[in-house]
């Protein structure tokens, strides 16, 4: 089977973006939305056909000796640096990119559909610009697709940055809200900072291995690592540095501690955008990146330890914070950070020799199921916010009577994320726990504990929204969302129920061979037990309005406040950037520019000026000081060099 038609998957969103972007307000809001959604639907159908053809199509070289092959569907040479160092633009088809095609197009299409209802209703609240919104959505989808199918790290980097740009535009879409704006800027700058590491890592990696190509890099990882010839820098091998720096880029996009600070703020963007970007696609880019280079990573033990520790700590940290947040989107944001950290940890503990590399498969499996149920939870949150016009839990309660569809969908999402069989999350999380126990019992118990916390805070959220008390909604009774919004909820609920039953290991595994998932009964039973206990605890505390939670918060006041303020991480960053960089460095320099260069020397210069009428007419007279600095500069340059030479 020829996969060359796969270029359509990228071209269709591009056309949509250009068309909607250029037409702008000449289209009506409704038309723009319908065009965007329809085009995305077509792109999704093509992506499905490519992926299904790859997995199930008649054997045309996809499977050789039981191993799924990596296929370059098409490529174009873009630039030749040297004979070997060539940059290409292309389409790499392998199990993980095919899986990502399905995830991205599914969620993106459903978000497009959902937005038709969600964004229309906000007409009165925000400025015109739905056309722009759909154009940006297409651009985002295009960049994300380009990222996952990239056959080389350079193309991945370009699309990686494009993902950053388009998410900047989408988060900042409500540009009339100051919070949205500062959030979009923060997201952009924090991830850009992380990408700095990524870029240096790419430069190092390509410098030594003389290739950007993923297939070349990963087909013979030992040789690729050896190209550095054992060169070391500050006690670690250069390759370990390169891979760690690349992971830094991934950690930025995937919001790993301490680069996670942008994600909770990014919740200021439109909720469907959060579902797309902050649940299913952009935030898993880091996981995808590590998975893509996994054969290299698993040879660098040190880097793998860094990944595991960062992942495990972030999982716990974010879960702790999620337990006390009061804004429902923030709870979901921290829950996302925590779940992504599960995937990262799972990759960190994966070794080819341990249980056939189960960690890798588990990570990808969880990525897949998480994308579905987390998108579901975000879209439900959107419907709830839509109904009660607030993000705060205090404005909700007892909603199960008013919003039955949403209630059931949200419950399914919670059961899935809590890891209750037979919902999707159970199977993937179970594999992650197996992988963690394989590596080290400590990590196993640690992750199981975090899984318990997950069940707790999700059910706290669920009860606070749908049970707890019955506030008086007055004449403005909340009700279920319109069909365009409910349909995606129903579809995603069904997927969240059954996705765990997919024999995922047969499609994706670290060496692309078949992997048979079999439940480890000990791990499965104990993790379900932990989850059930956590849910019962949440039920006890939050089913009916009572004072126990408040008492608990009081008892652990210090801890509770610290967690509520996200352990003051944002304040720390604020302090470093504003107090140190702006105040201590930039402001004195600006002062120097104004007062010393422009001003005080003006005074001195004016004395000299009074001698000459012509020059005095210039009044500022600071040229003298300019020339003075100039001359000193030239002399210093000479003097320092001469001294250093002698």
């Amino acid at each position: 089977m020829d996969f060359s038609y796969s270029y359509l998957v990228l071209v269709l969103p591009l056309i949509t973006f250009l068309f909607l972007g250029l037409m702008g307000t000449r289209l009506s809001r409704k038309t723009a939305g319908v065009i965007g959604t329809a085009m995305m639907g077509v792109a999704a159908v093509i992506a499905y056909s490519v992926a299904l053809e790859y997995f199930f199509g008649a054997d045309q070289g996809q499977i050789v000796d039981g191993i799924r092959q990596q296929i370059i569907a098409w490529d174009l040479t873009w630039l030749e640096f040297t004979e070997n160092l060539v940059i290409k633009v292309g389409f790499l088809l392998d199990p993980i990119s095919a899986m990502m095609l399905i995830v991205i197009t599914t969620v993106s299409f459903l978000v497009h559909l959902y937005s038709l209802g969600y964004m229309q209703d906000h007409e009165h609240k925000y400025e015109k610009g739905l056309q722009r919104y759909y154009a940006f959505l297409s651009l985002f989808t295009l960049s994300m697709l380009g990222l996952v199918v990239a056959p080389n790290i350079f193309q991945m980097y370009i699309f990686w940055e494009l993902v950053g740009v388009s998410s900047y535009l989408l988060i900042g879409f409500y540009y009339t809200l100051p919070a949205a704006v500062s959030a979009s800027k923060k997201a952009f700058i924090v991830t850009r900072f992380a990408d700095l590491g990524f870029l240096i890592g790419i430069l190092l990696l390509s410098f030594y291995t003389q290739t950007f190509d993923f297939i070349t890099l990963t087909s013979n990882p030992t040789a690729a690592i050896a190209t550095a010839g054992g060169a070391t820098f500050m006690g670690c091998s250069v390759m370990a540095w390169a891979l760690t720096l690349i992971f830094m880029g991934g950690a930025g996009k995937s919001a790993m501690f301490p680069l996670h600070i942008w994600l909770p703020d990014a919740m200021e963007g439109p909720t469907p955008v959060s579902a797309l970007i902050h649940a299913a696609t952009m935030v898993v880019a880091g996981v995808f990146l590590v998975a893509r280079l996994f054969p290299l990573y698993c040879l660098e033990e040190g880097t793998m330890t860094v990944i595991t520790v960062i992942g495990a700590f972030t999982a716990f940290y974010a879960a702790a914070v999620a337990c006390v947040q009061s804004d429902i989107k923030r709870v979901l944001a921290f829950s996302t950070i925590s779940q992504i950290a599960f995937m990262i940890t799972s990759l960190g503990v994966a070794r080819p020799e341990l249980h056939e590399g189960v960690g890798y498969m588990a990570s990808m499996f969880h990525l897949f199921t998480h994308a579905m149920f987390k998108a579901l939870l975000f879209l439900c949150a959107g419907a709830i916010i839509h109904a009660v016009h607030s993000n705060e839990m205090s404005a909700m309660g007892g909603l199960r009577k008013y919003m039955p569809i949403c209630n059931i969908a949200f419950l399914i999402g919670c059961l899935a994320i809590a890891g209750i069989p037979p919902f999707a999350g159970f199977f993937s999380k179970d594999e992650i726990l197996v992988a963690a126990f394989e590596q080290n019992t400590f990590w196993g118990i640690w992750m199981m504990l975090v899984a318990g916390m997950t069940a707790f805070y999700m059910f706290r959220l669920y009860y606070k929204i749908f049970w707890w008390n019955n506030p008086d909604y007055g004449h403005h009774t909340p009700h279920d969302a319109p069909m365009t919004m409910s349909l995606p909820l129903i579809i995603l609920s069904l997927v969240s129920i059954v996705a765990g039953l997919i024999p995922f290991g047969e499609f994706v595994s670290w060496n692309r061979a078949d992997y048979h998932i079999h439940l480890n009964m000990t791990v499965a039973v104990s993790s379900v037990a932990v989850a059930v206990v956590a849910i019962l605890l949440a039920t006890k505390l939050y089913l009916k309005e009572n004072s126990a939670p408040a008492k608990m918060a009081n008892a652990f006041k210090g801890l509770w406040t610290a967690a509520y303020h996200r352990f003051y991480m944002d304040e720390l960053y604020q302090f470093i950037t504003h107090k140190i960089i702006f105040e201590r460095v930039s402001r004195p320099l600006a002062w120097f520019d104004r007062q010393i260069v422009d001003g005080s020397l003006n005074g001195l210069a004016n004395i000299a000026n009074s001698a000459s009428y012509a020059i005095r007419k210039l009044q500022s007279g600071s040229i003298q000081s300019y020339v003075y600095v100039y001359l000193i500069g030239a002399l210093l340059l000479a003097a320092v060099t001469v001294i250093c030479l002698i």
Partner: protein
Amino acid sequence: MDYSQFLSMPQEIGLVAVFLLVFLYDTFMSKKVQNALPVFTCVVFGLFTIANVFFCEESCSIFGGMFENTQATVAIKAILNIGMLIVLIQSVKWANSEYMTVRRGEFYELLLITLFGMYFMISARHFLMFVIGLETASLPLAALIAFEKNRYESHEAAAKYMFTAIFSSAIFMMGLSFVYALSGSLYFSDIAAMIFGESSTLLIVALAFVIAGVGFKLSLVPFHLWTADVYQGAPTPVTGYLSVISKGAAAFGFMVILVQVFGSVYTVAWKWMMYALIVLTIILGNLFAIRQRNMKRFLAFSSVSQAGYIMLGVVAANEMGLASLMYYVLVYVLSNLAAFGVIGAIENKTGKVMMSDYDGLRSTNPWLSFAMMLAMFSLAGIPPFAGFFSKFFIFAGALSTGDVALYVLVLIALLNTIISLYYYLLVVKAMFINKPGENGAIETFKSACSERLAMIVCVLGIMLVGIVSCIYTYLVDAAETSSALFNIF
């Protein structure tokens, strides 16, 4: 003397022809068709720019080796021509304003003369030729900066520029006299041969003075102090011209001098001198830029730090560095002129140049804000815009030397791109996000046809130059024909 040598310099002859046509049109055409002068200049110069494609690209050395054309000089001149053409188109509206009508002929003539001087800076292989080019490029600029002579800032800026230019020339010439004392020649190749293996104090001082002299044109810290005042005071089209064309020509000439004449003291002396200047230039330029609120001053400091990035190509001192330098100049020309185009259009219409005046611009002038946003993204080096590729290539060029010191330099430069992203985003934030001030946002207006044309060219360039890979490949080929330059390494 063999006069047929003149035929080997078709670009210079073409430029003189353009100049003469404009001059004759200005002098002899009747009042009625005088108003068409700006358009006439654009058309003639545009034809000349296109004709450039067909000029011979064989390397030649003429006038006893004083003047040399290679594929690289042809390429950089073509890049400058593109920039010049954009400046000319941008200035049509301004040149047709009531106040300018009497003197606009001079504006175009002076502009063309400075470009002619820059051609000589690029092709000179003898210091006398280089100095003539440098002065021809500098002095008319002072007149251009003072062009809006009833605006106080304009002639203040001109006086400052003039004074600093003369001072820097004096220093430069002093450096040259030391060089002459050491080698007894002013030919680049002779000097290189004579000072080979030498590293005396006199040579270092001469080198420092030469660097300071050209550093003025490039506004490298600490030779940059004139930049902000002059950029702010000069008429906007002239500022645009100063910031890109003048800088691009100087960067190329600078690289030729450092590599060809002083190549033998690369590792002992000038690598470290340039190293220090680059670090200072990028960091100070960025830090000063953060707090600027006048758009022209803001871009002045931004261009200071951009010059630091361009110098990374010089420090690489190999073919890839040269190619990346030319590529960077091309991208920088397009991005910076897009920004100046927007500033000029707004200034012509409303006279506003403060960043706070741009608050809420998106709601009233979406296309101008879009062009400005792309320019800022490109200057900040965000893919897939051209600015990313130019930064990538210039970093790759510096890394290709395999020198650990340069790795550190690239790291410093990379860190600074994050700082620069912050202040470039300030402009984007003002336009797209800030609420309009008390007087409301700048009202919706239709910019002149010429301004729009120039902006479209720039925006297309920003979006496409990075993606069309053959441009870089062509420049690498061109740089390789100049490999004689790098012989001394």
